[in-house]
């Protein structure tokens, strides 16, 4: 049987990511991994954010470790706490990107109707 945190590390695709930021209190393995993963993938985070980031790492770990015995109300409370901290740290798309920019990025990432039409029609244009 895997140690308590291991299945969660696999679930979040964590690798050995080290960050220049350090948590303000001692974290367990899962919390530390979430802390490092979040810090390295969000370059806008600064030393002034470490308190909030530490709290976020702990909250996220509690959500990942939640099971049925905790009860729906507790799970929901923990999830909301995690989401609130994520928004404060601007980790979520909604809090980091203007909605119009996010929509434009999503649209630009897809082929246009013209590109789709040309790809679907086999023709010689030369």
């Amino acid at each position: 049987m895997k140690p308590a945190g291991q299945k969660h590390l696999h679930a979040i695709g964590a690798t050995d990511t080290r960050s220049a930021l350090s948590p303000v209190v001692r974290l367990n393995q899962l919390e530390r991994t979430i802390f490092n993963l979040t810090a390295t993938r969000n370059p806008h985070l600064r030393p002034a954010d470490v308190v909030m980031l530490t709290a976020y790492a702990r909250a996220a770990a509690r959500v990942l470790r939640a099971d049925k015995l905790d009860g729906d109300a507790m799970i929901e409370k923990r999830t909301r706490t995690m989401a609130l901290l994520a928004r404060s740290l601007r980790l979520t798309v909604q809090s980091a990107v203007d909605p119009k920019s996010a929509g434009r990025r999503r649209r630009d990432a897809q082929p246009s109707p013209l590109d789709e039409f040309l790809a679907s029609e086999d023709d010689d244009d030369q």
Partner: protein
Amino acid sequence: MINEPELSEADRAALQLALDQTLAEDDQGRVEQVKSKLRDDGWLATASFCAYHRQVKLLHLAPWQKPPCWLSIEEADAILADGPHTAMDGSGKDISNCAPAQLAKRMSRAGISQFHPDPIAAFAAKR
């Protein structure tokens, strides 16, 4: 600049369709703009504008891309001979007019007016 006497019946019908489609849009600002343009500039200039507007909108053309209604076959050939131009931002995106040029040539071969407001629908209708 196109002259009205040079227009084929297919071109006239396509331009009128472009005008009709634009006047049917939900965007009342656009509708008022086109009505005003009809009064001030006349049918040909307004319908040509509508063809441009509808093609850009329905084909989702990028700001640098010319719609088929702006491309002669000679210009399309020159663009295709020049080939694609890759953006320098590392995205791999082609920032040439090759795609609109290919469409313009296919429209010409298929007998679809270059002013048709919805070229893709026009091809679908021909099948």
